[in-house]
């Protein structure tokens, strides 16, 4: 080698080694900045971007994870107690039904003193330089008026319509808007004030609000624990209107709860931080049920470490910041959980066998300090038939009914659960899950037992012998509508299609995206589809109303997306709804069940069983089942987390070195030749 060549080679070598060294030094798979180490931050992934955080509009599970943390409500659920128990939140106590002399029923909500909103620029509308203001009862009235406002398009009109004068308010508002075009341009709170109050919502004073009903509706207390029952300052609605560079209120909620949003890039990252104006934070000494860690739970909680003396009676919240990152795909998300970058996770189907064996954590996972919680969620999944369709619906009469029953006889839920959910679910015989009144273990739906021979016989009876549609002479063709275009989703639905092919029905999957599928449901343009219902509150009414005519999706925008309608069902349902849990209620439920079994507007599929994993450094976790997040009770131990993350994520560097050496070995002779020629 010539001296020049040697010089060049050594220079290149140094450069390569330097590059490698700096590469291995910067090499890390930690997605968070180093400054976050040692902080009480909770890292969570979210898959779908929330559409709206407007408290009166937001309804989905995805959104509830955020709204549940930022909006305080008059009532809340107890963290530990099961069956689900309500506790007072912003209210001093749980309202009781007072029967008034005129036969009406009144619930009186008395608010705690000194409730104030989180700091927000919108309060400047009430005076320059103002950052916040006290919450008053009128704000809750305003919130309920927003529910009523057709322009807000709230999904809660139906339950709130139980309140006296609610519908009349809607009509007055609409009439006024129609007759007076200039009226529409006024801010919402002025419009509401101009058309007068809702009769059944009475603001007694700044800290007291009455809800008056003219019929029993015990479920209303559950709604007081729902984020739409959070007070809304009129300033927020007037200020966040999408004009003058202000965002819309759906992207900028003004909160009252334990956390407040400090960063909202809903496609990628959402950050919540402790709301220093929250009453629990300002007045830890009040030691209210909703501001300290509970001292009692259900049997077993103490053994599970959920009544740790280190936490009982301590003021909430424990975690100072909640970091949410969008992860569109399951597998990267789960891998990041296993690397310690998310604190908790569900289990992705793909990794199930690695994580769970015989219903327990595998030793490998247990060794990593991962904990498992299982719970059967009050979430019911079914294959629905659109009853407005002329082939499978009401219009098809007896023929359609038999067709639905025949199709029901083909669906093997157990096998489906095994293939796609690792058996995490309980096959459903009827809409009511085991944790809720009205469930009967002894009941078996005769059409939910797989029996292909019977299915074929029923199909003959229906006039489709061997699946052949006499009108075309070919197998009857139906459409299976789905909002899931992922390959996995298509396969999941293909399973049903394959089962129906066995009796000669030719069912084609029509996969559109989620929004379009929703649109189809809204317009009644679907035929057969897969759908689920997650309970809002623990009452059988919240499941059985899925078939109530008044909940029809197309006509009334309710969750009855089968658009099933049966006057007898409706009559029995109304009776059942108004009753407390007693024998008569059970009898009514049985009657309703018989009707459903006969009409088969849906194929009952399953109740979801949630397996949730968390790392050892996450404390105070109890699966809730419903979508309320309960994050304020949670705690983390960042020191353990930091150490573990470091230990788990040593980058494996030798392939890089090997590659580099190989690269040099291949190129150096070339460079040497090149340089030699240069001489």
């Amino acid at each position: 080698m010539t001296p020049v060549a040697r010089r060049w080679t050594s220079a290149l070598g140094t450069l390569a080694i330097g590059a490698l060294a700096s590469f291995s030094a910067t090499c890390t798979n930690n997605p968070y900045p180093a400054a976050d180490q040692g902080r009480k931050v909770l890292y969570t992934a979210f898959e779908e971007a929330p559409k709206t955080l407007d408290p009166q509009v937001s309804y989905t599970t995805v959104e509830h994870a955020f709204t549940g943390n930022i909006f305080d409500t008059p009532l809340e659920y107890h963290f530990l107690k099961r069956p689900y128990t309500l506790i007072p939140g912003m209210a001093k106590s749980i309202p009781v039904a007072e029967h008034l002399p005129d036969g009406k029923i009144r619930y009186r909500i008395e608010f705690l003193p000194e409730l104030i909103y989180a700091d927000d620029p919108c309060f400047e509308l009430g005076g320059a330089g103002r950052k916040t203001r006290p919450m008053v009862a009128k704000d809750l009235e305003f919130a309920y008026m927003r529910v009523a406002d057709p322009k807000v398009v709230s999904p809660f009109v139906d339950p709130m319509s139980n309140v006296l004068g609610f519908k009349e308010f809607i009509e007055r508002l609409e009439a006024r808007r129609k007759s007076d075009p200039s009226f529409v341009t006024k801010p919402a709170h002025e419009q509401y004030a101009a058309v007068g109050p809702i009769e059944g919502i009475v603001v007694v004073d700044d800290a007291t609000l009455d809800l008056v009903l003219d019929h029993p509706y015990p479920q209303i207390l559950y709604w007081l624990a729902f984020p739409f029952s959070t007070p809304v300052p009129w300033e927020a609605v007037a200020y966040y209107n999408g004009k003058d560079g202000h965002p819309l209120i759906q992207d900028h909620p003004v909160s009252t709860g334990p956390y407040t949003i400090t960063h909202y890039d809903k496609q990628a990252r959402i950050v919540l931080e402790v709301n220093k104006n929250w009453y629990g934070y300002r007045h830890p000494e009040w030691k209210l049920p909703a501001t300290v860690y509970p001292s009692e739970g259900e049997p077993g909680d103490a053994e599970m470490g959920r009544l740790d003396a280190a936490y009982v009676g301590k003021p909430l919240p424990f975690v100072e910041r909640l970091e949410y990152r969008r992860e569109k795909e399951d597998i990267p998300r789960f891998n990041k959980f296993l690397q310690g970058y998310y604190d908790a996770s569900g289990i992705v189907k793909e990794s199930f066998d690695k994580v769970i064996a015989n219903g327990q954590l595998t030793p490998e996972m247990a060794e990593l300090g991962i904990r498992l919680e299982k719970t059967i969620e009050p979430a019911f999944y079914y294959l629905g038939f659109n009853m407005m369709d002329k082939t499978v619906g009401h219009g098809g009469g007896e023929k359609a009914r038999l067709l639905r029953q025949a199709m029901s006889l083909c669906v093997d839920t157990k096998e489906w659960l095994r293939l796609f959910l690792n058996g995490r679910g309980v096959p459903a015989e009827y809409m009511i899950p085991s944790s809720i009144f009205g469930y009967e273990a002894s009941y078996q739906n005769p059409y939910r037992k797989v029996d292909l021979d019977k299915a074929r016989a029923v199909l003959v009876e229906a006039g489709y012998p061997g699946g052949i549609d006499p009108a075309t002479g070919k197998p009857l063709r139906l459409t299976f509508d789905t909002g899931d275009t992922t390959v996995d989703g298509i396969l999941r639905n293909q399973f049903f299609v394959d089962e129906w092919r066995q009796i000669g029905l030719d069912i084609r999957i029509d996969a559109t995206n989620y929004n379009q599928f929703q649109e189809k449901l809204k317009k009644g343009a679907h035929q057969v589809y897969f759908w689920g219902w997650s309970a809002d509150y623990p009452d059988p009414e919240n499941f059985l109303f899925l078939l109530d005519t008044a909940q029809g999706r197309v006509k009334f925008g309710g969750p009855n997306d089968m658009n099933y309608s049966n006057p007898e069902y409706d009559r029995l349902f109304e009776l059942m709804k108004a009753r407390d849990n007693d024998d008569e209620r059970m009898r009514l439920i049985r009657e309703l069940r018989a009707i459903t079994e006969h009409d088969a507007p849906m194929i009952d599929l399953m109740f979801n069983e949630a397996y949730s994993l968390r790392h050892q450094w996450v404390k105070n976790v109890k699966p809730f089942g419903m979508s309320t997040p309960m994050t304020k009770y949670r705690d983390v131990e960042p020191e353990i987390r930091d150490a573990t993350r470091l230990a788990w994520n040593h980058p494996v560097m030798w392939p890089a070195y090997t590659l580099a050496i190989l690269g040099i070995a291949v190129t150096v002779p070339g460079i040497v030749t090149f340089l030699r020629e240069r001489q």
Partner: protein
Amino acid sequence: MLAYVLRRLLYGVVTVLGVLLFLFILFFSVASPDNMARRAVGEKASPKVIENWKKEHGYDRPLWPWQDPKSNLLFDHFRKALTFEFGKSDADSAPIVERLKAGAGPSLTLTVPLFVLGVLIGVPLSLFVAFFRNTYIDRMGLVLCVVAMSVSILLYIVGAQFLIGKLLKWFPISGFDRSIAVIARFVAMPIVVGLAAELGAEIRLYRTVFVEETSRDYVRTARAKGCGEARVMGRHVLRNALIPVLTNVVIQIPFLFTGALLLESFFGIPGLGSVTVDAIQGNDFSTLRTMVYIGALLFVVAQILTDVSYALVDPRVRLE
């Protein structure tokens, strides 16, 4: 010179108008608003539903000027595009401009390094291979290039996430963060994948250019004068082959802005490529239209710039 520049500009404008017309035909005539609505709300939707959808999204007017000279979608389409008024997304009614603004940064952080590294690695490597033309290094290099070209980019992505992300733990498997401190580790893996996917074809192309250049007369003259091969390659060939190489490079510039569709989507980078993918999955025609339009606009601008700079360098071009 001025005349040439003006002519070139004029032609650029005509091309952009052509693109707009094409987009109009495609998204308003081939896929009529009725079609769009039907695809958005389902095949079986009633006429009234479709009318409502069209009204909501501003498609409820006649298409062509001869149907209604005052208010038609054609003029609207051109006016809005030329004044850069992109309007609202068909999927969720969010303003498209906001999305473009939010997406440009992440896209650039991925595509600029990809582009720069692509040139910095591709040109020397192809020069290297061309230097050893007709030897084992050249043949091995070519085989590697053809194999690298034949692998679907999907396989590269899946392979990298599995190997680099999951097994070796060099970088996060996916995700993005705008803060400078951590941004590099998120784009590192997509850059590696992007390089692997594009280098094969690039090296092969540049090599052909270089090899061809070595057969020219002046190269022979230089050799005859006693220039070493290395000097010939480094000085003469590289310099003269630079124009075709640069053309290939400049043409890639518009893609810097429109983003790397697949990479962004797989690696969870919220750039313009992700915006496009979301638009595809959400049947969001207005966003898609905008993305195609912007892509074409940038391409035309880049082309004009190259052509004009050629003309500056080489006076013969002007006469053509």
